[in-house]
């Protein structure tokens, strides 16, 4: 297995959104508690849970952190009909009657987004902390995309799980 073997519990997990953030994060790690730190990569675009940087110092794969099959769950695909029904109801409540969007072609987009950018992300982040039960995690995410949907879902999930996090200012 490449990368850092997780023999000890990591209290500091740095989720970086771009390989460009790697050097900065390493600097911070080495100025602090290096032996208890790990870096995970959550890329800007689907399938988000990437391991491209595995092999570099401090970088671990998602599966090593207990988040297995994060990308190949395809919840949206396996539960398309159920999700589609719920979303169609939501569109109805929102009085979306415009035929240009009230159709299967657009509904498909919403089901895909909801499943891949929300359900799979929440599940994976929750799994990360279920599998690493030691409390007092300190999460630092890189700032580049802090206003994107996936970032917001990650932050909200961390707050819900009562996990301290900090957004690293670039």
């Amino acid at each position, binding site marked *: *297995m*490449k990368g850092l073997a997780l023999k000890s519990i990591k209290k500091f997990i740095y989720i970086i959104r771009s390989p460009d953030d790697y050097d900065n994060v390493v600097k911070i790690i080495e100025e602090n508690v290096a032996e208890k730190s790990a870096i995970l990569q959550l890329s800007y675009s689907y*399938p988000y*849970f*990437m*391991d491209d940087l*595995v092999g570099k110092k401090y970088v671990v*794969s*998602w*599966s090593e952190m207990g988040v*297995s*099959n*994060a*990308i*190949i*769950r*395809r919840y949206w*695909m*396996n*539960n*398309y*009909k159920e999700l*589609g029904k*719920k*979303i169609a109801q*939501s*569109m109805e409540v*929102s009085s*979306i009657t415009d035929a*240009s*969007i009230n*159709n*299967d*072609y*657009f*509904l*498909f*987009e*919403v089901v*895909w*987004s*909801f499943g891949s*950018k*929300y359900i799979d992300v929440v599940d994976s982040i929750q799994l990360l902390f279920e599998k690493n039960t030691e409390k007092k995690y300190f999460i630092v995410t890189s700032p580049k995309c802090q*206003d*994107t*949907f996936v*970032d*917001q*879902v990650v*932050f*909200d*999930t961390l*707050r*819900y799980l009562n996990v301290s996090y900090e957004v690293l200012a670039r």
Partner: protein
Amino acid sequence: MISVVFLVRNCSISLRRFLLLADSLSENRVNSIFIDLFNFSDDIHKAVDELNIARPPKMVSYLTLVKETKNTRKTSDLSYSEVGDETLYENQTLYKDKVIKKIISSGIGRFRFSVDVANDFFDQMSVTGLIYDSEVPLQIRAFLFSANKRNVKTISIQHAEGWFDQYRNFPLLADYYVAYGKYNKKVLKAMGVDSTRIILSGSLDPENNGENIIKYKNLPEKIFLSKSQTGSKNKGVLVALRPSCFLEYRTQNEELIRQVMDVARSADDIQVFVKLHPRDCDELDAWEKLYKSKQIKFISGTSPIKELLRKVDVFVTCRSASIIDAVCMGKKILLVDYVEDGEWPPWDKYQVYLKLKPSNVRTALLRTLNGEIDYHAMNKKREEFIEDFRLVDANRGIKYLSNNLLKLLN
């Protein structure tokens, strides 16, 4: 003159079939336009060259269509700051509802923009048919939506021979569906597609139906050791990887190669060929740097797997459409059974391969190469398997499909 649009979303096997179909249609004066959705022009040109396509289709870049679109509608990315509310998150139902509403509102802009691009294209071109292989990309669905409003006939071509069960839940967005084999036709009917809207094309790979064998000019033949170089005992093992761009697959690929190479190193006469997944177009150099051994050769994901299978005795793979090729060619197949592999056709019941756990590859491969496993026993239902999953029929294939499409489009 009839014009048909092909939506190209990657450089996988579908591209090859699209090119062959466009070539066949061109013999009947049908003009084909390939819309390159994600900037694969180099791969498309390479495939045109490899297939010796005499009349290449017209290529159009989707990016160019976006730049040239008359509509100034702005697309919006999903911006979610207002959802971030920890008190709201406590109420998961309310939170999810708000998330869905936000996705809908931001998705509307992107969808309408993509429809505008498609509308502008159709306004400028007189198009009769639209051919695609997956409805997942937004751009493809926008083209389908636009085509539907204009009476442009839409035709879905199965993108791999084995990969259909995952789509069972999807809505039916095409006017017509192409099924390569009887099993897929059965699946489409179960999904609600009327028989009159299904074209049972048979295999679209000409060599399967006894049509002209395509010669791949650029296949790297030199990688294979000739008998005179290796002696008659040389054993070839082909390993087909999963897409390494995915989180879990890369690790599984590395573990698979490690086990196969453990076996290869135990004897001088074993040559291992590792074919990358077609999705990993740019990964060849990276893999070659990782494993430096004369016993292992990495092959580009876009190389035709049939040509590679011809050179080997043993095929190690996961669930993939290439299983069908290997069964047809009577190879000894070791199928690595990864538990998370979603729904696939019921291939297991035919017992045409050795199914094994990922950790058992090393032992099973060694026993296979030593002749300790009876693969002849796995041939009992081979014919039945081929009949269901690859309809090999001299009367079907690319030309048959091309003729049927002509009837639909005229």
